[in-house]
């Protein structure tokens, strides 16, 4: 009987308090018979013991050793071995998500010998060298925290240091400040997941991606996602290469694609909500890494709630309770109709930086914007760029336009913070063209249109999905129901 560790072998779904939320998620997938890279967890109990004695109990290390032996058996690889080496990912996981916890260390177990073994095995010395370099960079930053200590050579020392670093991170300044503020106990231990690495960057029959079980932007009941061949997760995040759609996967590896969609359907049925599934393919074999309830646009949230209830996956009351008043308001926000847009002259184009539509007389000067707005006039502010001294002008304006700058510029950040539509980077000279005219700023499309155009104001009873939800609620106004609920809680 293990006291300090738990194997994620599909036999049981352990308590998230004991193994952390992320490990519980992979345990659920494993229990459903889905292929997840094998993993074991050093539990929060072990962390608690470490925090009181400042060392891992001896039998704890014995169990970690036997966990590694189990991973070796499951993968047919050997940790620190001179052929077919096993590399692992080490990640933190508390029952409650909080800031300040340790980031994941990938590729642990690599050193000079295992790098050579990996190079022989894959026939790709560059891949092996890149894997080692990445591990050493992560280990130095995350575990050694920038001290000038050397990265340990022995994979077992690497593992010991990483496990302790995870335990220590539960006592980090940030984690403690967060717990204090949220009234959580100061002694909230974290578990450590040790999981076999799979390589999406191994060859052209490998890759990584994300599957949404439905379209998270429109809510359409069609799988949606992206795939990047010969890549690992951070290649997608870094944006260095643009991922292709999932359709490219169906052409490249139809069997893995079909298996992925089937897994998505199963997970959506079990979790009773749209899932966002991270996956990696290593030499044609699909591995699921994580599943979460998918984030979605307000439009998608409304459609998905109705569709899931129509399919009988959730009840009608639950469909309503899953929505927020803010989402319904966003769906009912005045919009630019396609017809109006097509019939109106575009004065300027830029990057959409803050959503919504705003219109008025275009003004170049912040003090003037403030003065005219105070007199009740609707104004749009146009500036070459903005800085803190322009904030009063942004507050006074219906919408903001800049000549230079992108989505992280001051104008973009401040406009989003104030919920003002904003289009940035329209090009030098824009202010001179626009000043003195009336204009409409489309913060969703990134365009400035001539004149103050009429907007379409969607109504709840005309909206196909909102009307259905309202009918389910006994024809009461949805916003009234949701506002009443929110004011109660």
């Amino acid at each position, binding site marked *: 009987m293990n006291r300090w560790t738990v194997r994620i072998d599909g036999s049981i779904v352990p308590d998230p308090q004991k193994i952390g939320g992320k490990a519980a998620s992979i345990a659920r997938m494993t229990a459903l018979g889905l292929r997840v890279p094998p993993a074991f967890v050093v539990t929060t109990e072990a962390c608690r013991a470490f925090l009181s004695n400042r060392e891992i109990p001896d039998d704890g290390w014995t169990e970690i050793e036997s966990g590694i032996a189990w991973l070796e058996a499951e993968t047919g690889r050997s940790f620190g071995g001179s052929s077919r080496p096993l590399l692992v990912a080490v990640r933190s996981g508390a029952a409650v998500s909080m800031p300040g916890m340790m*980031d994941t260390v990938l590729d642990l177990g690599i050193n000079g010998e295992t790098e050579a073994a990996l190079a022989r095995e894959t026939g790709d010395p560059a891949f092996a060298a890149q894997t080692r370099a990445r591990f050493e960079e992560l280990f130095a930053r995350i575990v050694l925290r920038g001290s000038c200590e050397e990265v340990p050579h022995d994979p077992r020392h690497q593992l010991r240091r990483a496990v302790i670093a995870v335990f220590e991170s539960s006592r980090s300044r940030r984690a403690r400040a967060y717990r*204090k503020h949220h009234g959580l106990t100061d002694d909230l231990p974290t578990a450590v997941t040790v999981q076999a690495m799979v390589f999406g960057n191994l060859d052209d029959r490998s890759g990584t991606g994300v599957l949404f079980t439905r379209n*998270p932007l429109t809510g359409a009941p069609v799988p949606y996602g992206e795939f990047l061949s010969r890549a690992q997760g951070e290649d997608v995040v870094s944006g260095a290469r643009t991922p292709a759609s999932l359709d490219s996967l169906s052409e490249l590896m139809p069997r893995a694609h079909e298996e992925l969609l089937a897994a998505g359907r199963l997970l959506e049925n079990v979790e009773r909500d749209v899932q966002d599934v991270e996956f990696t393919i290593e030499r044609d074999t699909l591995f699921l890494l994580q599943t979460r309830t998918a984030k979605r*646009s307000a439009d998608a949230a409304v459609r998905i709630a109705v569709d899931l209830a129509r399919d009988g996956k959730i009840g009608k009351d639950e469909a309503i309770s899953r929505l927020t008043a803010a989402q319904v308001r966003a769906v009912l926000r005045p919009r630019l109709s396609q017809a109006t847009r097509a019939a109106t002259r575009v004065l300027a184009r830029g990057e959409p930086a803050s*959503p919504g539509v705003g219109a008025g007389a275009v003004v170049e000067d912040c003090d003037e914007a403030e003065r005219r707005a105070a007199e009740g006039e609707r104004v749009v502010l146009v500036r070459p760029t903005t800085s*803190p001294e322009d*904030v009063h002008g942004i507050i006074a304006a219906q919408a903001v336009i*800049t000549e230079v700058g*992108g989505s992280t510029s001051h104008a973009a950040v401040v406009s989003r913070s104030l919920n003002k539509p904003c289009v940035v980077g329209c090009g030098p000279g824009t202010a001179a063209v626009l000043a003195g005219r009336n204009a409409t700023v489309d913060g969703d499309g990134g365009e400035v249109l001539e004149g103050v155009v009429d907007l379409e104001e969607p109504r709840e009873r005309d909206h196909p999905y909102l009307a259905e939800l309202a009918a389910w609620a006994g024809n009461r106004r949805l916003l009234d129901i949701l506002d009443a609920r929110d004011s109660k809680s």
Partner: protein
Amino acid sequence: MTLADTEFEVLHAVALRKRTDLDGLVRSTGLPREAIEAALERAAEAKLVLAARGSYFVAPEGDRALRAVYADRFATARADGGLAADYARFEAVNREVKAIVTDWQVRPVGGQKLPNDHSDPAYDDGVLDRLAQAHERAEQLLAGLARRVPRLGRYAERLTTALHRAEAGEGDWVCGVRCDSYHTVWFELHEDLLRMLDRQREE
């Protein structure tokens, strides 16, 4: 045109904040309220500062005076290249801070950026972790800057306050415009450095 230290600091802070009340100047300068009031009174008499309904602005004459003082006070700093080197390091952290603040406001979903509704604590915690890491680099940078210009040390305190409040769950302290949020103070610092170096901001 010369200005005493306190007068310079107060006038400079009014210029950075553009339109400010007394409380804002106390936070920016860390000077005692009475000293600021006295300096504002003298500056108003000299027509360097305008006051209206509790707000203060720099008058055109005050801006000219400030520019002259910058050229004088920061002549060495501008010439010796040390400040410029610090500024180059600031730029690197600046790009990072701006990207982190943007990720606080919008999150990628299915290849598009949607407004972050802050319903996912794991996502928000990840962003705050990155902000805290960038802040550690900013603190080192500011410690170096404060050795040249002690006044700049104040930014480290104000940024730390904003970070702590954000970490404690008050999301407005990341980039709200109505408090001395991380983004607000960061931009004030950026403007301060640009004025000292007599440079224009590049987007």
